[in-house]
């Protein structure tokens, strides 16, 4: 073995390591390429730390089991890819409305449908936001390296526990399957956030009451002796169904505001080579690696190119786009392995402030640095 700290590690492996470090003690799933190693390694590792692994009969059941385990107090995760992610949507919506913390890993592969099982894509950007029906809160984060998979899996659990919301870790086949040199942090340096508990002094617990005026009710665990009702129907603070318009509106507002009022905590992005940049490439996930390679070449030629890498995909980083309006930037290129899903969001956010172009690839191959370079040159000619 290499040193415990420095090692060659696969993205999917780093996901499980991060989850365990964050305190995951339950995994239910239905293995699917290119996420399979996550289930495989979780099956081996979880029993050794007193956790539970269940391979369920399908994706619907596995998402249901994850919600149930979390209600009983365990940090729970599932992992899937496109077709399985589609099947999990109903119970993801249930977790959004009932405010059950959970982490859902979606390792993107080519779609739609069975698509390209072994090949990379970034075609689930919109599905992570609006895959389940109705207005609902959700947090989606996306890593670009194996080390970041580790860090972001921990962060996914932390955000999910803190805001009582499902957190989607949006990976892709490239980052999931590649192995690279990583140095993992000391366990003692990792911040762990746990869900807010019900104070022992509290009598007459109302499971959906905003006791702390932060939109996040404390959560009792099933089995702890504080029974409460959980339903996918719109409910009042007692947890029982209601069709009252005021109750409904208050609930939806609270669900949306607990995210919208905390975007400074939730949204993370990275800016590189931005000091004098006139053209900025907006990207995320594996594509950011190709973009960075290209920028290093273009910078040597003296071109003023920078990169905005979104680490949080949803809620969208409007603030990052607004910051660009106060700079020398006049052109944006949105690079993604899909037909232009993030591009439309960036355009809406920019409100006409920049010339905006898409660099889109959806043939199962990673965008190459040369393709990024070619796009930058092509766009420069339109100026």
């Amino acid at each position, binding site marked *: 073995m290499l040193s415990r700290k420095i*090692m*060659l590690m696969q993205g999917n492996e780093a996901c499980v390591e991060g989850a365990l470090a964050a305190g995951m003690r339950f995994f239910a799933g239905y293995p699917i390429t290119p996420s399979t190693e996550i289930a495989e390694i979780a099956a081996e590792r979880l029993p050794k730390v007193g956790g539970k692994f269940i391979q369920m009969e399908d994706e619907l059941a596995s998402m249901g089991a994850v919600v149930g385990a979390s209600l009983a107090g365990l940090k729970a995760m599932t992992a899937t890819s496109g077709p399985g992610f589609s099947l999990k949507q109903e119970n993801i919506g249930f977790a959004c409305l009932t405010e059950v913390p959970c982490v859902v890993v979606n390792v993107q592969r080519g779609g739609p449908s069975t698509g390209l099982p072994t090949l990379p894509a970034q075609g689930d950007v919109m599905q992570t936001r609006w895959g389940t029906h109705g207005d609902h809160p959700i947090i989606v984060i996306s890593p670009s390296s194996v080390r970041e998979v580790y860090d972001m899996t921990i962060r996914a659990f932390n955000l999910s526990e803190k805001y009582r919301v499902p957190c989607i870790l949006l990976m892709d086949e490239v980052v999931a399957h590649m192995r*690279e040199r990583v140095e993992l942090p000391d366990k003692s340096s990792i911040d762990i956030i746990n869900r807010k508990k019900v104070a022992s002094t509290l009598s007459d617990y109302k499971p959906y009451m905003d006791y702390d005026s932060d939109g996040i009710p404390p959560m009792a665990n099933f089995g702890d002796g504080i029974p409460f009702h959980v339903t996918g129907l719109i409910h009042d603070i007692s947890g029982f169904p209601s069709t009252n318009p005021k109750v409904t509106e208050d609930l939806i507002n609270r669900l949306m505001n607990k995210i919208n009022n905390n975007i400074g905590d939730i949204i993370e992005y990275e800016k590189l080579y931005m000091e004098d940049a006139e053209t900025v490439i907006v990207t995320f996930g594996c594509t950011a*690696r*190709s973009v960075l390679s290209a920028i290093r070449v273009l910078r040597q030629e003296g071109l003023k190119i920078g990169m905005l890498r979104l680490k949080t995909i949803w809620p969208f980083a409007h603030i990052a786009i607004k910051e660009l309006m106060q700079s020398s930037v006049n052109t944006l290129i949105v690079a993604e392995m899909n037909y232009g899903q993030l591009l439309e969001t960036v355009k809406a956010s920019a409100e006409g402030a920049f010339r905006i172009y898409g660099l889109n690839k959806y043939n199962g191959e990673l965008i*190459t640095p040369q393709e990024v370079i070619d796009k930058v040159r092509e766009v420069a000619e339109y100026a």
Partner: protein
Amino acid sequence: MNERIEIRLGGSGGQGLILAGIILAEAAILDGKNAVQSQSYGPEARGGASRSEVIISNTSIDYPKVSKPDVFLALTEEAMNKYKNDLKENGLLIIDASMEKPKDSYKILSVPILKTAQEKIGKVIVANIVALGTLIQVTEVVSKESIEKAVLDRVPQGTEELNKMALYKGFELGKSK
């Protein structure tokens, strides 16, 4: 050494070339370098041409895929024909001696990897380690000390001596060229 060296290993699914790529990348890390390993395969469960790729660099590795391999080692003709076309102009193609040499202008090295594994060691299953030995003897991409450690750390318990012998036979094959 160049700042970034790209190595491709190709063969048929089940020959252990993905493991060989992992071992090579681990050896590079033991040498204090950066390494990325990736693989390509189709939706079929086994057989077919498969490839494993390793990038070794003294600096950060951003784009994680091999675009123009410096070295391509192929153990089957199917893999060779499928994956040789983007080999770097002055790149090195290492093939098993059982294969017909392609009529290309690359530097081609034909070595009896499969035969050595089968006849000298008695197990064709260690051909991947023989191949690694040959590749390292010829290219010196990683140190022999690191590759030996990486091989011994990764192979199943009880097969250490067998794999060490395979590695050394591989070195010898490389020396003879």
